């Protein structure tokens, strides 16, 4: 079972590497979106510092929506998804493998870029640490919940927009606790309560997504 998991991850990473433009587009969108805010708001350091957590987190949310449409769509279009459903290993394992690969390709770059982008908002070091931690815990939740949405909208016209409409309301708690952790840390108090709540969300979605995603894929193929 673990072999199949590793195999799915390797395969998806390989395909993502061959279609480099998708993950790069996600990362560039994140950089550009966060950079536009200081330009639009103006160079007032206090204002930027207080808005930074929300800006970075909202941009990360929107950036992670970009690549969701492709999570299952390409495999759906060329028939690989059918073979996955009929595979010798349980479908939830394949779903979790695809989600992990998706996070490595589109979530991890956001995590790594965020500290750099936080510098342009003049965030204190402690807050940057909290931002990093909140994104490390939070972005996998985006991939997990996004996978359910992506599977549910398979084969629909305008699926890309629909995924965002479906998933964005669900990830509001992630945004609140993620940005909350950074804000708390920036204002001198302790952000760990927010991070623990995020961890709880991650555990919950990680337990739920494989089954929900597999069920959604089966429905989409019928």
């Amino acid at each position, binding site marked *: 079972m673990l072999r*199949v998991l590793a195999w799915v991850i390797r395969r998806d990473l390989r395909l993502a590497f*061959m279609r480099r433009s998708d993950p790069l587009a996600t990362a560039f969108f994140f950089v550009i979106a966060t950079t536009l805010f200081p330009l639009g708001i103006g160079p007032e350091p206090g204002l930027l510092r207080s808005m930074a957590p929300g800006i970075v987190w909202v941009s990360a949310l929107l950036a992670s929506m970009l690549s969701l449409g492709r999570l299952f769509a390409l495999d759906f279009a060329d*028939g*690989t998804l*059918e073979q996955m459903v009929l595979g*010798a290993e349980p479908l939830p394992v394949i779903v979790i493998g695809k989600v992990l690969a998706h996070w490595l390709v589109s979530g991890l770059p956001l995590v790594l870029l965020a500290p750099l982008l936080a510098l342009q908002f003049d965030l204190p070091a402690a807050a940057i640490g909290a931002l990093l931690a909140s994104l490390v815990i939070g972005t996998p939740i985006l991939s997990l919940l996004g996978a359910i949405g992506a599977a549910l909208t398979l084969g629909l016209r305008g699926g890309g927009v629909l995924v965002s409409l479906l998933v964005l309301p669900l990830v509001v708690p992630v945004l609140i606790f993620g940005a909350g952790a950074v804000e708390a840390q920036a204002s001198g108090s302790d952000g760990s309560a927010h991070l623990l709540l995020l961890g709880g969300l991650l555990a919950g979605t990680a337990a739920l997504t494989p089954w929900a995603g597999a069920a959604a894929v089966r429905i989409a*193929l*019928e």
Partner: protein
Amino acid sequence: MTLQTLRLACVRGARELFGGLDLELGAGEALWVQGPNGSGKTSLLRLLCGLAAPAAGAVHWCGRDIRHLREDFHRELLYIGHASGLKDELSAAENLRLGAQLGGRQGDDAAVQRALGHVGLARASRLPAARLSQGQRKRVALARLHLPPVPRLLILDEPFNALDRDAADQLSAALSAHLALGGIVVYTTHQADALPAQRLQVLDLQALAARRQRPC
């Protein structure tokens, strides 16, 4: 080892494509599903392999419902549908290896090369799938039939499409050999006499639908 359907029905929208379908296929038997376009051939094949849920009735493998067997049934099944399942960026050999691993079958280089040799693609194995012709893509999909161990139940949707004469002959020979070893083959094709007639059941979906409309 039997594949059995019990009062199987398929509904698309408000229209019943077929209903009350009872089939029984034992070791060494083939089923040729016939019918005009839109009569439900592909739908029936998808029901048989469990990709779609029947509107009524059930499909049984060795006496148990396939929806309860799931992976145990999938290990005995090879389904090749209309979609080739090929990634354009990957080579024919890589595509085949991925398919093998997904089905829990032997996917080492030697086995993959042998399978591609069987379908006459040994020299094209390193070409990206995007550069293969329709017929060659079909051959790559069909090469999975030659990866050991071959599952006992083969469900093939239009396997002869896009194949040239030689490849079609080779495919019928491979399927006949599979039947001789006690396998089961379910397939659709518009090509007559694709498989030798012994132990071949023919199911005509149009005739079935007509019978149901005028019950005597």
